[in-house]
């Protein structure tokens, strides 16, 4: 495919879609599929056939539309209506253009002007609900691969990097390293062979942002990687995706094949001299493989264990070559930045954190699902306005961000803007975007114990502090929750927190104490109450 052909396909596909009387988007992300979206889609197809409307009404899939708690979700494009909890029996009413039939569905229609939709700002998830992730032409119709076409024909690699630097984009994997700087580091290396790696080993409990992006818009990630390859001078990319994400793997495989066939990836990208191939590497279920050096070892076919940095991957990574590693969401932000310019992106968000962030809302919250909010929105906005607050009249107690590496944020910080700096100041981290809301029924010592159990199970066992320290910390926390703790235990727990933070080899061990430290900081009274109770029991 050449650049001219790309534009032709875009116009033709847009025109074709406009001629249709209706296009019905049925959510095909894992959340909706697990509650029966496939059957809804099948019966929609059957109804279209029965009504003889194949030429006028098209049924297609769509990426995650956000409100996962109300799945299966179906969107009808003609009247821009979104329906929740759709059952296969309602397919006829959805297919029919008759307003009387539609009236039957009125109760299931979701108000898209509600704060859940109105307060979101979609960049990464912009295409979810308006295109089918399994059809390449759909992605091209919404402007897909235009950024890549623009870059390879009109921009030099340093200009692409300059644009990313200007945008102020920071890594969405959790640490928030400036993306433009990382790209520049790799670009400056003199090696002939370089690699681009997409980290899709999303493993935090309660997080599913990257999965939804891969399932709902795989081509966007491929385009972002190709742009990175062009900018840093790499010809090979790898996507390291966790084995549990079957649907995402399948969508990626389809997308890679489509893109290769259309010369959007491969030896002659868009008919130019730029070449870039992407291969999948599937993880075998180790959380630590999200750590970049362990991820590299795993791609190389070795045991997934981290090694000490430096050298950092931009200098010596995959097979000791300069390697650029970014997270799924980071790559998904690249095409719009190149298409609309770094300045546009930098106009969204706060001084230090630009753009938007996708959050997976989970726990005690009304609107469980996927949202995208501009950086700097307060936790209150995210949890109470977009998320709809706590169900069953419950009272907010804490929000956990950043998974097992993050911390719990208590009520007094609800108005803190959510950006990298502010969260770090209150002892948590942005993390990859998992946000677990807890109400008063949560026992904070048990929350700390839960995350410690996770770290204990996921420790690779290479370094002693993490391998044995997590076991001992879990042992202490478990005894405390059972009311068997002693003050000496609490003292040892704090000593181990410091030990793990300062001496562990990789990020997993270094950040494993964070949930304990933050609950100790804000909910120390709960620990004290447990100790008092166990003393009482002993008497």
């Amino acid at each position: 495919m050449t650049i001219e052909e790309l534009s032709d396909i875009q116009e033709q596909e847009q025109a074709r879609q406009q001629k249709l009387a209706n296009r019905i988007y049925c959510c095909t992300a894992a959340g909706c599929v697990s509650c029966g979206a496939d059957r809804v889609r099948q019966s929609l197809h059957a109804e279209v056939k029965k009504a003889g409307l194949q030429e006028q009404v098209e049924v297609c899939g769509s990426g995650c539309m956000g409100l996962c708690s109300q799945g299966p979700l179906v969107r009808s494009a003609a009247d821009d209506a979104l329906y929740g909890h759709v059952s296969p029996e309602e397919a006829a009413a959805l297919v029919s253009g008759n307003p009387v039939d539609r009236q039957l569905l009125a109760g299931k229609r979701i108000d898209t002007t509600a704060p859940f939709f109105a307060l979101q700002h979609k960049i990464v998830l912009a295409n979810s609900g308006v295109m089918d992730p399994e059809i390449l032409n759909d992605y091209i119709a919404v402007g897909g691969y235009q950024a890549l076409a623009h870059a390879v024909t009109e921009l030099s690699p340093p200009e692409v990097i300059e644009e990313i630097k200007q945008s102020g984009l920071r890594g969405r994997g959790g640490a928030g390293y400036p993306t433009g700087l990382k790209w520049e580091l790799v670009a400056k290396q003199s090696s002939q062979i370089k690699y681009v790696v997409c980290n899709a080993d999303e493993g935090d409990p309660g997080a599913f942002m990257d999965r939804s992006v891969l399932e709902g818009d795989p081509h966007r990630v491929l385009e972002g990687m190709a742009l990175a390859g062009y900018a840093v001078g790499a010809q090979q990319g790898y996507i390291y995706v966790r084995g549990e994400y079957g649907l995402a793997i399948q969508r990626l495989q389809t997308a890679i094949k489509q893109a290769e066939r259309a010369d959007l990836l491969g030896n002659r990208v868009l008919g130019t001299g730029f070449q870039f191939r992407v291969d999948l590497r599937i993880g075998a279920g180790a959380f630590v493989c999200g750590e970049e050096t362990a991820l590299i070892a795993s791609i190389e076919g070795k045991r997934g264990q981290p090694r000490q940095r430096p050298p950092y991957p931009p200098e010596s990574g995959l097979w000791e070559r300069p390697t650029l590693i970014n997270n799924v969401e980071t790559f998904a932000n690249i095409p719009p930045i190149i298409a609309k310019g770094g300045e546009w992106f930098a106009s969204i968000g706060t001084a230090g954190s630009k753009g938007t962030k996708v959050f997976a809302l989970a726990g005690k919250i009304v609107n469980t699902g996927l949202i995208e909010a501009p950086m700097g929105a307060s936790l209150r906005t995210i949890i109470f306005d977009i998320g709809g607050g706590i169900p069953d009249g419950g009272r907010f107690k804490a929000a956990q961000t950043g998974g097992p590496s993050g911390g719990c944020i208590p009520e007094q910080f609800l108005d803190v803007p959510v950006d990298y700096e502010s969260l770090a100041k209150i002892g948590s981290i942005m993390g990859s975007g998992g946000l677990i809301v807890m109400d008063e029924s949560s026992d904070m010592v048990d929350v700390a114990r839960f995350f410690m159990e996770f770290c204990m199970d996921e420790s690779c066992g290479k370094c002693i502090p993490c391998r044995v320290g997590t076991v001992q910390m879990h042992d202490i926390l478990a005894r405390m929750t059972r009311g068997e703790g002693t003050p000496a235990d609490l003292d040892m727990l704090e000593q181990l927190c410091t030990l793990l933070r300062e001496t562990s080899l990789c990020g997993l061990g270094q950040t494993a104490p964070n949930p304990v430290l933050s609950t100790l900081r804000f909910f120390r009274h709960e620990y004290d109450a447990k100790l008092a109770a166990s003393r009482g029991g002993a008497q």
Partner: protein
Amino acid sequence: MSVKTLTIDGKMVTGIAGETIFNVAWNSGVRIPRLCHVGGVSDVGACRLCLVEIEGQKKLMASCMTNVEEGMVVRTNTERLQSHRRLILELLFAERNHICAVCVMNGQCELQDMAEELGMDHVRMRYLFPKLEVDTSHERFGLDHNRCILCTRCVRVCDEVEGAHTWDLKGRGVNSLIIADLGEPWGQSDTCTSCGKCVQVCPTGALFSKGRTVGEMRKDRRFLKYIVTAREKHQWIR
């Protein structure tokens, strides 16, 4: 070869570019504690005992994995490092069943020496007391998982010096175990050459020669230096 001048514990020392802080320190008489390091094979920075403070860096660095730089100011034995090292040893002693009184290496064991040297005389946490097996299927040697500290010296010496790669790890976290080949009994391993290098480098009584009783096992590490010198410098000297 460029020479780097640095300060280790207040002492001016020199090293060659590419040398680790650990090597330079030992060569100039500063003994940094270690368990996973053994001269002659690659380093992994796993035991975390050799962590040092480097001025201007927030993080503690494993000295066996960090190269010397010009003007570096390194501290190897501060109060903080000592207390971290003792706690790491406590974790190790609590992890498996290290009962010195009935160990073939009693009195010769590096783990024991380390505890003595660093002043770790009691364990303040719960012993895990895992139930682990002893593999005595090999004709000449035995493997006692109860005494293994997972330093992976055996794995590295077998792979890098003998070239057999009989040893590897299975499982993860506290459930990691050293395995021969794909988890067979040692005696049935197809790759093992029975050279005994792993036994000689093992810091504890986890790998031992059969027929030795409590405190009788002596290990000889000079062979490794001999092989490495022979390989790298083509000098066959003891």
